[in-house]
């Protein structure tokens, strides 16, 4: 799509959801841009493109990061998980199931970001207090303000993961 190139290009391996992709990327491309426009993984959303809303949150290793704030070349060779990785063969992840059961979203545009941040939270802190949930999710905006249902869903997901 970029002929001729306007910016330096490197060939990198991007490991997304367990699959290695050999890609020619412009250095100025963000991870979010490559996920969405090159790999067509559009679950990660563009809400602000400037680290204000969290709709693009993905996991880099164990850590939630804003994919709009990282260049694709920086993410080369590191394991990246997007929302598309959560459900396996149509079976929802417990975090997704809890958000579905508790109506933890309305328009859903923020949901992928909330899910990835929640997964990172529960992986590191399986039994968070409400205050810990709020602090962990403070970098994700929900403009439907479904916060009450989201908090309930995170608690339900924690309970579900403990039970299983």
């Amino acid at each position, binding site marked *: 799509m970029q002929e001729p190139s306007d910016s330096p290009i490197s060939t990198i391996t991007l490991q997304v959801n367990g699959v290695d992709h050999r890609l020619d990327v412009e250095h100025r491309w963000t991870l979010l841009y490559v996920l969405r426009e090159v790999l067509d993984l559009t679950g990660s959303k563009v809400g602000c493109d400037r680290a204000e809303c969290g709709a693009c949150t993905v996991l880099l290793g164990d850590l939630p990061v804003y994919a709009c704030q990282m260049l694709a070349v920086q993410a080369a060779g590191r394991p990246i998980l997007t929302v598309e990785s959560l459900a396996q063969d149509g079976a929802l992840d417990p975090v997704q199931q809890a958000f579905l059961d508790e109506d933890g979203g309305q328009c859903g545009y923020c949901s992928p970001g909330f899910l990835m941040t929640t997964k990172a939270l529960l992986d590191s802190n399986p039994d968070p207090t409400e205050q810990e949930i709020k602090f962990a999710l403070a970098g994700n905006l929900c403009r439907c303000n479904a916060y*009450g249902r989201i908090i309930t869903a995170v608690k339900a997901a924690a309970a579900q993961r403990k039970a299983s």
Partner: protein
Amino acid sequence: MTLDVVGQKVERRGLREKLTGEARYSADLKLPGMLYGAVLRSPHPHANVLSIDTSAAASQPGVHAIVTPFDVPAGRIDGDLPILDTRVRYEGDEVAAVAADSPERAAEALSLLNVEYEFLPFVLDADAAVQPGAPEIHPGGNLVGGQPISLERGSVEQGFVEADLVLEEEYLVPPHGPAALEPRAALASWEAGKLTVWKSTRGVHPDRAALSRALQLPESDITVIGPYLGAGFGSKDESRTASLAAVLSQRAGRPVRIEFGRREEFVSGRTRHGARIRTKVGVKADGTITAVHTTAYVDCGAYAASGPGVTRRLGQGSLYLYRCPNARYDGHLVYTNRPVGGSYRALGAPQGHFALESTMDRAAETLGMDPLEFRLKNRVPPEGQPGIRTTPADAIVDTQPVEGGIPFSSNGLEQCLIEGASAFGWGAPKQALPDPTRKIGRGMAMLIYRGGPGNRSSADVRLSRDGSINLLVGTMDVGEGAETVLAQLAAETLGVGYDDVNLVSADTSLTPTAPITAGSTATFSTGTAVVQAAGELRDKILELATVGLEVSADQLEARGGHIYVQGAPERRMSLAEVARHIPGDEMTAYAEIVPGSTEYIVNAFGAHFVEVEVDTLTGKVYIRRYVAAHDSGRILSPAAALNQVEGGISQMLGYTLSEELITDGPTGITLNGSFLEHKCPSILDYNDIQVIFADIVDPVGPMGAKSLGEPPCAAVAPAVANAIYDAIGVRIKELPITPDAILHALDPSAGGSA
């Protein structure tokens, strides 16, 4: 009526796909050969565009199309809104657009457009804009429509004469951004002279009509499809985006997608209108209200958009929330060189209710009455306002009338006040805090909102020979759950499970006409059509089943996916068995309705109670407890309803305490078009909200429902402002009530940028 699906908790339609990432929103769509569109926006608040030199941009590699006001089709999106204009009227207004094969190249091309502007004087203040000699923003003057919207019942002049006490208060509300997390996007593609547009929309049929006007194409040559919407909050009016994408795509011969950036969404999207509102109330010593008169100066911004409707709606509370023979509203909508106001959730009601319910609190206090007691005494009763009906007997009653003499279809306002106050513990003593710098206060406000009847809508329900069911509606689910509720209504009527109804929505090539999802009307309008169409299909199914079950249709019942003989449930056929007897491929029923009632006003009601804690050292306000009691008729979908009320309140706590879109006076440039600077609530700001639904089944609404999406927004600001007053003893009459405003109120020599 026993209900199997309506009133039950069901899985929100589309939420599963949203959670897996499969759900595609407009900006997630791609087509082969697609180009990226970008819009050049005016850096000046008011200017003439004298010329645009496009040669440098056009010669760039990868640039495929450019559109300027000098070569754009002449049609209009709206009366005052061409696709592009040689006059720009606010900072952020559209000047030109380009399409290129990458976003970077599109941005680069914009920077190479050489525009010659002639600067014009600008005006940012509605009061100044109507003064003689003010810069004229559109031909014909800055007062939109040339005159105010003036409505009166009885005579307020007479009512004020009868009063023992007359209070007059003025309130200021700022513009703020709906800031839907999904920025606007539109993807346009042409094939054989016909246009298809996928866009963030709240109504595909109205958007098709706007594109038809703008591009001067017959509607039959245009398809508009609404993919998932990352919320609208009423703001995703047709702007110029889709028209620009269509023109660029036509010129380039390739699909073009335009996405807004975050600042574009704040500045060039649509805001809630700022306003200066004066409310005057006359009361007798016993607390009886004799007159209410509200005058509003509403800042329209640069284009009218839905400003007239918003301005009309701003007066509804003053005209109808309190029983009073004399009420008047004068709403002035004024063009300024600010970002364009639109129909942000609850359009006008939050502004009007802030002024009204603050003023009424003062009236109660002045009379020495408890705010709850004052409202219980004066609330509008089920029989409506005193007076004589002037609407002809066979005409559908306006849902926001002025006249008296018309009863409500249902009115749970008293129940909301009593049950809300009881759950809140309104009369219980306030807890004293050990820290004297922290003050607790309580406040309340009530609300009225039109109940849902909207424009003509329709529904198409189809049973296939294999027993599967399709429901086709033009309605756009804007994130609130319209698809969920409409599928529930269809399933309930047909006697099948919620998951048995496949719903197809918001595609002008497939679905019947629907109005925009606005004014909390989707459930009422399209829901009524769904119930009617599904009822007709059910009757046809019963008729078909008479052959197999050997009784007449009036002895049959559809329930649980079966057709039963009433009183003999063992005599039954499954719907799939019955469907095999359909003569053709499918059996269909279609209903087109004009919702509403010739006998009743249909309105929703509510009462909010809040306890705040004010830190007088920092000025920060904490919400300690919040109780919201609502009469929205029967609650069709309890989980979605709870989410709507909680979300609406939390969203409006932002309006009340932190949000304002600030346009710089000297330059006319909007300063804070970002989430960091336009402070929307985060999860850290959220505190539990107790939601109560009054036990009301409306006789007009579909299965007893009235509107729900917007009403929660109306009462938040006054309830919180009244509580802050109760806490600190100073009444703040301007939103947002920021820490700075609190500190300034407590000590006018300290803090305070006001």
